[in-house]
């Protein structure tokens, strides 16, 4: 968990257990990996339509909902044209193995 410490004050991508993707600045966390994001938005990918970003503001995400917290490489991020990127909705983590 304290692995999150190195991400503090950095831009992170957070994948939640319902398959959503949040992007924001990691402001804090605790030992159950509850996290607080500021300047956050949700990014929605679609196989056909352009990528959408939904502004959210500050967000507290419960630790048990968190799948991944990844540190964002700003340079690579800025070079990516998300309008042209398509993708599938991530699955949630509740799907038992088929």
């Amino acid at each position, binding site marked *: *968990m*304290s*692995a999150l*410490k*190195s991400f*503090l*004050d950095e831009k992170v991508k957070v994948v939640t257990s319902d398959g959503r993707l949040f992007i924001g*600045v990691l*402001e*804090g*966390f*605790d*030992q*159950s990996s*509850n996290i*607080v994001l*500021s*300047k956050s938005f949700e990014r929605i990918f679609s196989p056909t339509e352009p990528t959408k970003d939904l*502004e*959210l*503001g*500050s*967000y*507290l995400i*419960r*630790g*048990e909902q968190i799948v991944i917290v990844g540190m964002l490489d700003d340079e690579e991020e800025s070079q990516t044209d998300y309008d042209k990127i398509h993708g599938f909705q991530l699955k949630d983590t509740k799907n038992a193995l088929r």
Partner: protein
Amino acid sequence: MSFFGFDPSGPPSSGEKDQKLDTLDFEETYEGLGEQDEDAFNDETFGADVKEIGSNFDFTGGLKPASKPQTVNPNLSYAKAAQVDQVIAPMASLWNEEAKTADSASSQPASEQRVLSLEEIEAKLRQPQQQVPQMPQMNPYMYQQQQQLLVAAMASGQFPNPAAAAQALAQGYFPPFQPGVMPFMPFQAQQMMQQGALGQGQQPQQVQPPPAGLQVPQVPQVPQSAPAPVQQQQQQQQQQPALQAPQALQSPPVLNAASPPPHSSQPVPQAVEQKVPASASAPSSSATPAPQSVQQVGSSDATGNFPPLGYDEKPRKQRPQRQNPENLTQEEREKLWRRQNKVSAIIRCSGFMNPRDKDFVTRVQLSQIVTDDPYNEDFYCQVYRVLNSSVGEDDMSSIAQKYLDQSGHRLGGREKRADVALQRMQQQVSKAVTVAKERGERTGVLAKEGALGKVSVGSGKQPRKQLVINTTGSSDEVVVPKENVYSKSSRAFQLSVIEDIYSQVLKLESLERENQERDSKDLWNALRLNDTIETSSTVVSPFISVLSIDKAMKVFNRLFHFLNPEQKIKLMEAIFANLHNIDVVMKGSYANYVNENYEIPKTEKSKIELFQMTVMKTLVLFVSESDFQQVLRFVALIVKGGNNNVLFLSTTKIGLSLITILVSRLELIKQEFSAGLSPQDLAQWQTIYDHLFQALEGRLATIFPPYLSNDDARKVRNSESKSDDSYIWQFLASLSLAGLLSHQRIIVDEIRNEIFGSMGVSKALKESGDLQGAEKHLSNLNLFLNVMGLKASESDITEL
């Protein structure tokens, strides 16, 4: 643990560390706030029925805390915990990467910032304060933000009352939080209320600290939420400091029993009182026109007057922007709004955790990891690190070195799959042959008689009785004993026998690492050598029946190490006497697989390999240090022991190898230390040898598995045909070495076809260009022929 922000490089008690630990000492910073368990206004604030106080904040996400409380040593303070971790090298090295950043982040503020005592805060409050009265003139958004800071600051427990907090904030002062208070707990609480995800009665157990350690407060609950367990009542009283924040918010000026605010601070509480209803009654998302509104946490009813989350370390930065909104034009106001929104978006929540907060989290975690028993809980890592360390053996801790020495762990290493036992046997046989040769040259006794009929230089110089050659009986007939079949339940029994042995071995190994007295009695009893179990065909002791199971083979060397000399001998004798009841020995005979083209199943082959690397290695080492009489007893047990069928054993690789080892050991002793042997010893050996020879005589060719045979009449080709046949030649060499000329003649006569077959193969290999293969065949053959003073080439056999 560097992972947790401590310097892993220094010794545990280095000065820097001590200093750091001092700053974390709860007792020093706590100022005795928790001792005031009387709060006259508690009922007024939360309602009279304290049982209503909810305990439903579940910071563990409804899961049981990952660490069991009992694994935390209650006598271990966090400070100690941090030190303990220094001792555990693998843990420390693990987090090295984070060490530097964490260290620099946490250590500096600790020394620069200091925690204000109540008196100091009070003194500050008494000073006239200029900036605070400006607050009411802030625009609503700014005010809201200021409120957030205020509440967050108070919730963090640093300020005894809102006045102090507000003042401190206004001064831009942000003292480090006091250990023992989680500054952001209120946010979680709010968030969870909003989500309606209220875990009933679950305490955040994982943050329950040791008695002498830090106190993590329960977040105060409002009466409307779910009923709380009675125990909450007590906890609530212990948590006075934390409770003060919300209390103070609801009626700030008078409520704070811990530190009555002086009159000079009146402007601040007034400001709070005036503005709180505004922000509380209207959800701030609607009150704030900001497009990216703060995620609203909780209605004002449920949370008291908590404003939305977030506080700012740098509130003063905004101050220059502060203007009276009423003096602005509509356009300017919008512009201001936008700018402020932008600024607030940037600074919102930033600095959410100060270095001490981070430390607190890591210390909580540390407390869960720390154990007073690292070798039980971290055994794998501890030993693995040492076993696999690239550091030289000198650097190994004694613990792991001993562990390594006794365990078969390294045997499994890919590159070290050498067949240790067989190698050793080969060396022994070669040595015996060499010694015999040298002695023969010295004494001129070397027999050069024509074993093959080619060379005939006269009779041997040592007259011995002529053996009666038994030529009856087909050479290929080998009696296959019935397979031992155990019932299912006895399989479970076998496994439990093995696990018992492991338990004893692990205990003894632990004692050995600690250099304590060891008693092998329990281990010996666990072997159950005197016990018997009945199988379908015989009665054996449980240990013999389990010796073919992989994990029993693997533990053999380790258990053998702990036995006393008598026990070792007893165990060896039990094994030799029951060789052919050992499953892995028995199933290794090609005679079991006549119908499968003599193909030994893969699983059996790997078992045989494992047996050679484990059990046999130990046996060979023991035999190579045993004296003549002892080895003789072992051979006698094989040859004359009622359980063994020597002819059958000679068709197994393990059986043949073991006989080879014993016989060659006897011959080596005989040749090198003949002075130490009595005539009785030699006579006894002669008798036993005769037994052995008679058992094999006439069927000597059967020791060649058909797939390794080069006798055109017997040979069969399968996947094993290319495998090494040197163990057979070694057996023949040691058998010849121990025998008389007459024995040698019989041996050569019986395997004549194999000798010439092997020469033929060697010739064919040479012609096809495989010089190495050709040479190998010849050298195996010559190991045997050299005993009789002969030497084979591809086409000829000559005298040495």
